């Protein structure tokens, strides 16, 4: 899932400064699962904002509305009849959702309440770890299912570097060395030959905005 974390409260406060009526839009998918931007988090943030603005003698009307997915037009449509009652929209979705919201309502300022952080896994309640950089050229097939692009601090394709430290990364003893793990796993699987040969320079496919159209589908014709 996409993991995000709430922005520092002061930053959110300064983003919405000057607005008197705001709708905070939550997202019921990834950011809800990682306890950052779902219905509950929208209510909590709204209560904090309401309180802070009251204390500052600058009251605000702040409503909340959480839709299933902000990255999907089908769900965004539920906002069409609401947004014009507000001076600005706050969004607790990931960066993709925030932009899709802003694109749908270009006449209204859309402000982020979260920092989108990574594509990750759920280690435990409230504990998430990054696993994928969406590089568009997956190497997991020959790296023992461990991503060096994400998990190696230098994103090396031919590691480990000389800084590997008893199984840890040189940047932090708490951070396992990705290439150490790759080596250990492939060794156990008797597949070390996977990393014996040189990995050629990557043809980076993530240097421009990417679009995916599945086979059998096509982009809708531009409306005249």
């Amino acid at each position: 899932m996409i993991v995000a974390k709430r922005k520092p409260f002061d930053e959110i406060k300064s983003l919405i400064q000057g607005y008197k009526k705001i709708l905070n839009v939550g997202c019921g998918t990834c950011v809800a699962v990682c306890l950052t931007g779902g219905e509950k988090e929208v209510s909590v943030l709204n209560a904090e904002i309401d309180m802070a603005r009251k204390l500052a003698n600058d009251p605000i009307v702040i409503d909340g509305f959480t839709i299933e997915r902000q990255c999907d037009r089908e769900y965004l449509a539920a906002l069409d009849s609401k947004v014009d009652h507000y001076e600005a929209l706050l969004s607790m979705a990931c960066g993709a959702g925030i932009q899709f919201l802003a694109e749908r309502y270009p006449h209204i300022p859309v402000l982020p309440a979260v920092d989108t952080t990574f594509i990750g896994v759920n280690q435990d309640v409230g504990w998430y770890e990054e696993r994928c950089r969406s590089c568009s050229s997956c190497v997991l097939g020959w790296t023992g299912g461990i991503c060096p692009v994400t998990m190696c601090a230098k994103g090396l394709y031919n590691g480990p570097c000389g800084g590997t430290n008893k199984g840890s990364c040189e940047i932090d003893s708490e951070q396992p060395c990705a290439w150490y793990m790759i080596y250990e796993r492939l060794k156990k699987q008797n597949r070390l030959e996977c990393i014996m040969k040189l990995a050629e320079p990557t043809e980076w496919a993530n240097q421009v905005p990417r679009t995916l159209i599945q086979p059998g589908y096509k982009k809708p014709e531009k409306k005249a």
Partner: protein
Amino acid sequence: MKSGSNLEKILLAGHFAFTGELGPPRGSDADEVRKKAGYLKGIVDAVNITDNQTAVVRMSSWAASLIALQEGLEPNYQMVCRDRNRLAMQADILGAYALGIRNMLCLSGDHMKFGDHPNAKGVFDIDSMQLIQTVKRMRDEGKFLSGADIEHPPKIFIGAASNPFADPFEWRVHRLAKKIAAGVDFIQTQCIYNMEKFRKFIQMANDMGLTEKVYILAGVTPMKSVGMANYMKNKVPGMDVPDEIIKRLKGVEKGKVAEEGIKIACEQIEEFKSMRGVAGVHLMAIEWEHKVPEIAERAGMLPRPRVD
């Protein structure tokens, strides 16, 4: 001859090579480079010019390499993958060669986190292995990574690093083999303190026939103090400092520790001279360049051979 560099000629002639290291200044004073170069001229076969080492901004390594060259000291131009993408790297290789640089050391680079700009964006477009391959392709095939032709291919003697002590130990020779497959001509190792482990590493490299395909220069850094030894042991990732070294340094009178450090280094160099598979020594006397002539003399590395 691949490049015609002095280092290549020395190694090709079968002499025991001796290289040094020069860290560029954190400012723009060329005299600082000249001063350090002055200590090393005629003492080493080539000098490594470090590239923003420990991820701290310094005078660029190609510029300091040129100053060394003007001083009559052959540079071994270090390039790390942290700070440039493949366009900038290939451009700098062409420029370096055009201005007389003939040796290069291809490195990944220390992580930004260690340096003075810890939140800089690390590039790592290609890694050190792929950089070796890039320089080789430019030199031998006359082609850029894109496949396009180079009009006057740069003839560079290609170096890389090897850390025989990092884990997993048994993978180290395979990584060396990969660097050889990528096209490396010479290797300079991480500072060696654990001689037993190094002997094992070289033995493995000999057994795999690797030392016939690449020149290995053993890395030596004399300890200046007990504090330095402890720091190297505990704080520098991938460094292996056995307790005996620390014990030995602690065992001498105050004021004699640096002398003991030099003594250890000279003993190591003596052993490397006759170690099968070791083609020379890379002396990294960190901020101790002025001591290099003395260490070279005492280690019996002088005078340096001349090969035309």
